[in-house]
């Protein structure tokens, strides 16, 4: 029996972080990634598609999000270089293989870690990912060189990853 709309939406929102993050890797714009997820969710309940089980739904959603993201990129950033299709597939496969673990605790840990980021570092992350500014603009705004911004962002990402792992660690 096909999944009803409410169940479809529940499954999709449970996988929202992964689907949005996968779209982000293509469009490199957190807001566009969120829009793409919303479009996929809308299509899942408006188009003539039905899903027998969660796996079928999420496979469809993964492919749809990727198509939407590529389409978005084609229209808006056609000249930038991104990930090759085979690399995106590899990332998707690994993502899906880990999706059996619930996203909730991991995302909660990530949010707690982000909460603990110092204000100036948080500002950097916001400029980059919330306001979607290119690193050159971020650099001009914070009065640093673009290479320094790259380095600070890299360091922040690794610190956040470490923080999440510590919070999820049973000890």
């Amino acid at each position, binding site marked *: 029996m096909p999944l009803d709309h409410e169940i479809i939406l529940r499954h999709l929102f449970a996988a929202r972080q992964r689907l949005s993050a996968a779209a*982000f890797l293509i469009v490199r714009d957190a807001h566009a990634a969120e829009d793409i997820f919303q479009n996929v969710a809308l299509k899942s*309940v408006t188009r003539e598609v039905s899903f027998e089980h969660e796996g079928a739904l999420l496979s469809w959603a993964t492919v749809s999000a990727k198509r939407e993201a590529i389409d978005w990129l084609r*229209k808006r950033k056609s000249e930038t270089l991104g990930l090759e299709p085979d690399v995106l597939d590899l990332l998707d496969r690994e993502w899906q293989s880990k999706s059996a673990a619930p996203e909730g605790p991991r995302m909660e840990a990530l949010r707690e870690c982000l909460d603990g980021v110092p204000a100036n570092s948080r500002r950097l992350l916001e400029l980059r990912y919330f306001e979607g500014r290119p690193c050159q603009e971020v650099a001009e705004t914070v009065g640093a060189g673009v290479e320094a911004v790259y*380095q600070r962002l890299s360091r922040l*990402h690794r610190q956040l990853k470490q923080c*999440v792992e510590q919070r999820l660690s049973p000890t």
Partner: protein
Amino acid sequence: MNDDLLIQRLLDGTMTPAEHAEVNQRLRDDSALREHLRDIAEQAVAMGDMARQREKDTSFRSPHSAGKGARYSSWLALAASLTVLAASAWLFLGSRESPVLTLVDASGSIAWSHGGEWRTEVRIGESMSAGTLETVGESATAQLQFRDGTLIYLTGESELSFSEDGQKLLVLRKGSLSAQVKPQPKGKPMLVRTPSAEAEVVGTVFDLSTRSDDTLLKVNEGLVKLKRLSDGSAIDVPAKSSALASLDSSLKLNSSTTPAPLSAWSFDFTSTVPPRDWRGVWHDTAEGGRMVSSPYIASRRPAENMITHFGVSVRTGMLNPPLTLTATDTSIVRYRLKQDQPSPLQVMLLTSVPKKGYYGGNFECVIAADELKPDTNGWCDIEIPVSRFKPLDQRQQIRERHPSPVGNILTAVLLSSFQKDTKLTVARFELSATSAR
């Protein structure tokens, strides 16, 4: 180059072709690097979520704060999303193939999706079955007509899903619409849903705008029942009144008399945070606020390439309390602006017809670069009398129907640089009916 820098350049879109090949190969070969990239993507998405949430929760001035005191939890936004999704699904369950709306008039780019089909060319006079219509770009407009004569006017970057199967059902996911609604069958009012509200309409003239956290309703004639989705509370909004339905249910839901139309009004970006739905990015600087242009789709060429301009908009429909700004034959548009290089500018007036709310024409004035006389700090004050604005549409019949903005309502005023980011920065906008100060 080390992995971290390569990844940052990948995400920043600044890789050279050689670096592009290198980063893809490293990702193929290195599962730890792939895991790191996935972590970054999850962090970026979570950061976007958190920043959006924090912005809604904060009460101090921030570049995109729509207003003060908006507080609600993320589940409300999620619930609103689900509600709109459910409403969208609901309206699509209706008749899919029979024509619902006819495109009466349009300017700029519009797109219609229906049953898996996505079309970017819809002809004037073409009938559309249930689906979603999008006006693409800041200056795009579309006027639509139901079979009973009910008119819908979409403006700016709006997205409207529509259906009619005995009852008119609309979902305005973003943007603004004006409607002139014929009397509806008993027990089957027209319903317009947004992420934060539902309007129930029997027969009336009204304007509706959906913003990030709320819905603005302005009723010109008749009566509209406005329901707030966050708590289900509802009010009747009578003629010449306005109401705001917020996701924040702690705010009182009531209507108030719509302020009288103005022919003189100004907005000072140096001291006031603009609505986040306006085009441009507001920055707070030591010298005061600034609105810096952001890119938007000006039009699409036949081959689907988009023409991008960089603009700053003043959208009157996104203001609370609502603003009705009228162009008169003595109107003068003024800006205080600067650019980082001399470049011509375009000022556009998007207009609607008073009281009826439908399309009144789009008008353009081009300011040559040598007209701009920057002071020693680069700031220019420009004055444009309304007589300089000419119809944007090249079609003769449209130019004859809408020859001038005089007497019309200004739904938006848009200042842009042409296809080039000149870092156009605006400190002040003004419409006045007076000669030079």
